């Protein structure tokens, strides 16, 4: 099989070939590495390419097969991990200078489970620093570019993961989603991004941004690949007390269940917002029609507190972030700027180690937790969060899934919004509800926007949400949509266009 054929294979197909001996893991790895060699100079999806470790792992798989040992569900599948996943012995920074030089002495649950299933870890994928951002521009490193057009952002914070999967520099990837950080970049890069229910996948070994909202999940080429990865990742973990102790269903089997009889809820009020790009609206309505054709019915749902979701989210996530990031003091690991006194060392280390967006969120979070502002901000936000969760619970009494766009716009250009954090925050409007309520949600490809003079054709994603632990229903509908469309087969230009070919007109990017 030619390298170009290999990188077109699904993760499931790769594992099957490797198990059956029709492909060697080393051969697979070489194909994806060659692709990464070609795309990385433009895309910068990887913060770290673990060539030696990947080769050793691939050779071990081939050796195990030669010795007649049984191989796992992801045997020989090259998988990249967002840089906030801890891999024992591998430089891990969560995209931040403050962790520069940190080599974890312990193994995270995600790496352990993936390696246990035979995956080959290709390296650490770039991200917004500490997962704070929607564009990958909040980084002290080279920002990731969108494989569909390198003048555009890949989304964030799991931008490296989505870009690498879209570009074919790994077969699948792991991302993390706190307010949309798996789904939004998946949407902007035209791949599948699955945010499991809160607690479905362990957080042990995932560097925290906002602990009550963070969830690890797969980014993949198609829905069934995402299901296959979830199968390996999901399940209780004695090292995470918030991990749900519930049996793990057969996710791949649920992908074949079809959408017939499913009631899909639509929150029409949210679609009326003026920020919604017409191309996104069109793709969304088309996706609904596909689901109806597959046997689903549409129902309107009410989410009365939805308008407060963004404010609630930014109070809660900044508070938790300020707390979670307190440990980065330069004393035990990572970067340290030594000064004469302890206090000065703290200040210099954190001043130099965190970028502006991270500092902004630490300041906001510290403020909302102050004794004299707690009740008005954090306490209030917790109450509203409960109301939002109740809204969803009530909505799900009348439907099995809720569908919505993922991002209000197909994408935006590098630099277009980086000086406007508020607009950036508002772009999470469709995704953060699932985090606040702990729901399962997925972003699936729904086609390309029409190219205009100001904007190239860019992928658009559609979101499905299901109640907690209802991933089987979510996957059934997502796979039914995928089986009826070809959107997931669309590939970005190869080789990627140069990022400097011509500057896009930022004003034509659409939304607000």
């Amino acid at each position, binding site marked *: 099989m030619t390298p170009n054929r290999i990188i077109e294979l699904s993760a499931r197909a790769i594992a099957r070939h490797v198990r059956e001996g029709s492909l060697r893991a080393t051969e697979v790895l070489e194909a994806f590495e060659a692709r990464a060699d070609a795309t990385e100079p433009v895309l910068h999806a990887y913060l770290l390419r673990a060539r030696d470790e990947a080769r050793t792992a691939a050779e071990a798989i081939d050796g195990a097969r030669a010795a007649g040992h049984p191989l796992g569900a992801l045997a020989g599948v090259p998988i990249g991990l967002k840089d906030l996943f801890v891999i024992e012995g591998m430089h*891990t920074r969560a995209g931040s200078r403050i962790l520069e030089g940190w080599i974890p*002495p312990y193994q995270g649950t995600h790496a352990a489970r993936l390696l246990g299933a035979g995956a080959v870890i290709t390296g650490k994928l770039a991200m917004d620093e500490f997962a704070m951002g929607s564009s990958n521009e909040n980084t002290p490193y080279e920002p990731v570019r969108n494989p569909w057009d390198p003048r555009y952002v890949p989304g964030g914070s799991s931008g490296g993961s989505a870009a690498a999967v879209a570009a074919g520099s790994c077969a699948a990837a792991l991302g993390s989603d706190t307010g949309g950080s798996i789904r939004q970049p998946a949407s902007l890069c035209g791949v599948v991004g699955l945010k499991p229910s809160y607690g479905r996948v362990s957080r042990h070994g995932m560097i*925290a941004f906002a602990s009550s909202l963070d969830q690890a999940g797969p980014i993949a080429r198609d829905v069934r690949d995402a299901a296959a990865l979830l199968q390996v990742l999901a399940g209780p973990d004695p090292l*995470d007390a918030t991990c749900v102790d519930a049996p793990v269903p057969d996710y791949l089997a649920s992908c074949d269940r079809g959408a017939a009889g499913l009631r899909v809820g639509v929150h029409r009020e949210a679609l009326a917002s003026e920020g919604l790009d017409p191309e996104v609206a069109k793709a969304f309505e088309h996706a609904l029609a596909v689901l109806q054709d597959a046997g689903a019915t549409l129902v309107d749902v009410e989410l009365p507190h939805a308008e407060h979701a963004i404010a609630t989210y930014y109070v809660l996530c900044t508070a938790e972030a*300020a707390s979670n990031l*307190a440990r980065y003091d330069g004393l035990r*690991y990572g970067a340290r700027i030594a000064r004469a006194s*302890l206090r000065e060392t703290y200040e210099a280390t954190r001043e130099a180690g965190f970028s502006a967006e991270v500092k902004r969120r630490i300041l906001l979070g510290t403020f909302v937790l102050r*004794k004299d502002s707690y009740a008005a901000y954090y306490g209030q936000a917790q109450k509203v969060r409960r109301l939002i969760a109740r809204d969803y619970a009530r909505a799900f009494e009348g439907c099995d899934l809720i569908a919505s766009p993922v991002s209000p716009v197909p994408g935006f250009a590098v630099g277009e919004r980086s000086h406007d954090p508020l607009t950036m925050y508002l772009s999470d409007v469709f995704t953060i509800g699932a985090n606040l309520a702990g729901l399962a949600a997925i972003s699936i490809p729904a086609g390309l926007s029409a190219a205009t003079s100001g904007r190239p054709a860019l992928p658009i994603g559609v979101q499905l949400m299901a109640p907690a632990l209802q991933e089987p229903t979510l996957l059934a509908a997502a796979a039914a949509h995928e089986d009826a469309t070809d959107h997931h087969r669309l590939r970005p230009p190869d080789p990627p266009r140069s990022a400097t070919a011509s500057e896009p007109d930022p004003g034509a990017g659409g939304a607000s």
Partner: protein
Amino acid sequence: MSVADYEPVIGLEVHCQLETASKMFSACPVGLLAPPNTLVDAYTLGLPGTLPVPNARAVHHGIALALACGCQLHERSRFARKHYFYPDLPKGYQITQAHEPYATGGSLEVPGFRDAEGRPKRVPLVRIHFEEDAGKNVHVPGEDHSLIDYGRAGAPLLEIVSEPTIGSPEEAAAYLRELRTLVRTLGISQANMEEGTLRCDANVSVRRRGSTALGVRCEIKNLNSFRFLAQAIAAEIRRQIDLLEQGQVIESVTLSYDVERDRTRVMRSKEDAADYRYLPEPDLPPLWISSEWIDRVRSELPPLPAARRAGYLAQGISEDDAVLLASEPALGDYLDRTLAAGAPAKKASNWLTVELLGKLNADGIGIERSPVTPEALAELIAMVEADEVSGRAAKAIFASLYGELRESEGSTPPLTPRTIAERDGHRQVSDAGVLEAAVREVLAGHPEQVQQFRAGKTKVRGFFVGQVMKKTRGQANPQVLGELLDRLLGEDD
């Protein structure tokens, strides 16, 4: 006004390290004497990506203490993060229970102290909650840097907060002693102040006697011995009264105790007090304590000190002895076994506190390693009760038993009070027939003295007792002997 016009009001915050194999939130082992930074794991060091997982054994211990203090146990409680930056705090926050502790209310009886109505004093508790310990900064004199030992970081702690109802430094020390007794009895902590497994902060205020309003309180930190606790509180009471007498106001400050100068010293004022920015711990679900769990712990509770004391008092044991014997589980256990072997309570307590503890303390031996078993002590007491041996002989038997068993460390064939009494001829002769012969012999051999007695010189009676004792090698039962003498001397020739 004078010092006597004021009364102190004291509340204690006690930290007690729980006796568990692993830390509060990770499988990392706990220990006291390990080399620095050896008892650490990824969680203890606050490494990115690590998460806390509660230690069920620590929760078990916490339930036991709450039950013993009669607290209200909450089925659902929550952990919270308390933030401050300090090198010994690896995560930049400590996990504790802030607004939703697992136990509230309850009380602790303070032995030897009475309330206004004359009943045994009970100090009510505000709350008990779980938290994790910090590490230790080690300041090296003369060096330009400090060292940090994270070995203690994450160790499981209970914080026990009393209501401010303690009335004197001595009562505060007694409260802390009782708490130590209780946690040791429960087997949930070594509670050793020198080793830091029991630590205490004191909140002190004073008010005009008769007033019910509380004065401004000041907190004295790190009172790490019973003596310093009482001294520091006394010094702080003096400081506050002096200020009030000078017409000044008391400011709420945090103090330390200067042992050398016997005075409290201000560490920081209220304005400098940190805002800990408490956050409900998102990494931990609520802690659920089921009624089944509580019942299980309750069924395993050992006899508690207050109940033991009450039982001992009811059996006629003096208050001092009752407090002493209930102060250490092993002592109470020893007494209980002695009583179970049939010894009368008052006698057993006397033998235990005077003879046995006298010897053990002199030899520096703990009660749990006593050469004389409770059953042996009970046998000895029974022999005295049955007039088999005299009180004096019993002491000799006890001395031999203790000494020989201690020397042989249990390797010799079974030594019992009875075998020693036989061997050393300590058996008391109470048989009136046997003794009468001896008495008659003595009287017959000393007609002169008999004459003197009958002439009214009753002092001579002691001479006859001595002679009979000599003849019987001290084994005559003094009471039987006395009765015989009185009868025979009263007879006419």
